[in-house]
């Protein structure tokens, strides 16, 4: 019997081609489920044309593709699909912005951004593929970006 692992959604947003194993971190960056009451489905290690990938589907909600660009930090090949009545009406490949604020913690324990100060973490993007970031405050470059995701 053929089993459909990932069912299509009628309306909403599909984040496709997420680096395998990173779907939950993508949700954390997007502050899901706190930011939405929509139904969210997550599929991990799904086989696609270009090997394994993760997929996130958010039903009945069209997420702003620009807002989603920040996930390029950990899923640089992800695509955002806006779905209406089962049709993809908009497709957008994530592009890492020049600066990322408040989504990753600096890996340097003595960086002032990790102290009790009224500032959000802030990084300059110094490389896009692969993503490389440098702390705006202490100028250090974390070795593993995914570890710092808040």
């Amino acid at each position, binding site marked *: 019997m053929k089993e459909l692992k990932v069912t299509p959604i009628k309306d909403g947003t599909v984040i496709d081609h997420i680096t395998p194993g990173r779907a939950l971190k993508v949700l954390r960056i997007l502050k899901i489920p706190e930011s939405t009451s929509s139904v969210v489905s997550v599929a991990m290690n799904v086989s696609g044309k270009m090997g394994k990938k993760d997929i996130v589907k958010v039903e009945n909600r069209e997420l702003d593709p620009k807002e989603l660009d920040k996930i390029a930090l950990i899923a640089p090949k992800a695509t955002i699909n806006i779905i209406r009545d089962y049709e993809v009406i908009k497709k957008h490949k994530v592009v890492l912005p020049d600066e990322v604020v408040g989504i990753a913690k600096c890996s*340097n324990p003595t960086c*002032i*951004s990790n*102290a009790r100060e009224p500032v959000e973490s802030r990084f300059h993007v110094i490389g896009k593929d692969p993503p490389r970031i440098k702390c*705006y405050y202490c100028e250090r470059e974390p070795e593993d970006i995914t570890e710092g995701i808040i």
Partner: protein
Amino acid sequence: MNFKGRDIISIKDFSKTEIEYLLDYTQKMIPYANGEKHTNVLKEKILCSLFFEPSTRTRLSFESAMNRLGGRVIGFAEPSATSQKKGENLADTIRMADSYSDAIVIRHPQEGAARLAAEFAKAPVLNAGDGAGQHPTQCLLDLFTILMEKKKIKGNNVVLLGDLKYGRTVHSLAYALSMFKADLTFVSPESLKMPKEVINECKELGVEPMSTTSLEKAIKDADVLYVTRIQKERFPDAEEYNRVVGSYKVDSTLLKQAKENLIVMHPLPRIVEIDPEVDKTKHALYFKQAFNGVPVRMALLSLILGD
């Protein structure tokens, strides 16, 4: 070139042309820095000096620079008598200092503290060292010292020695020397090697630094030997510190193998890494280097605060 109101946080915020301009301006400050001439260009201006970490040279030379320019200095030399002790965050301390002064100089044990201070202050902020991070005025005075002694920076073989992992001066200096196309050799114990990201920055600026653990090998071709202290306060544990302290010693025996015109520099304080017998030799430049902190800081303050 306009420096008015500018924050001085990291040497990386400057272009080569701006650094050249600053070094040129510094030279003009020397007669004022040594008391031969007098000026009051910063009369009525107040510098707030916030030292959350110990300092001798940086703090005194900033104060001397401001006084030599006719300005005034308020502030503290250690945080135990301030509201930090009561748990106040840095942002609030800076807001307060900002309202009391025309410029703020800050030394702090945490990296990025000066950048944060600049965000909360309207007045210009000068970084006097943030943890193991940046120390731009030290970097400028080091460049100035090399330039004065060697007449150019480009092409000199500069050996950076000691704690290259935690030492903030050597990180900024390696970057700045690469901008000026000096040849670089890094000498350190294996566990205190120059971080990869600093080496990559040098390479991006077109310089291929050499790395070795042998000072004897490196000294022969050196034009400048920049010695640094193994900084106990930056080590995560005492055991690691004890393993490497005293790894290198610059003394007259070592200097016999050096070029006649080698200059020995050190940001100071020194502990055991330079034998006092070196002080009397023509190689010793570290006390002159320390003096150069005054004209460099005078140049910066007058350009940032002057009319």
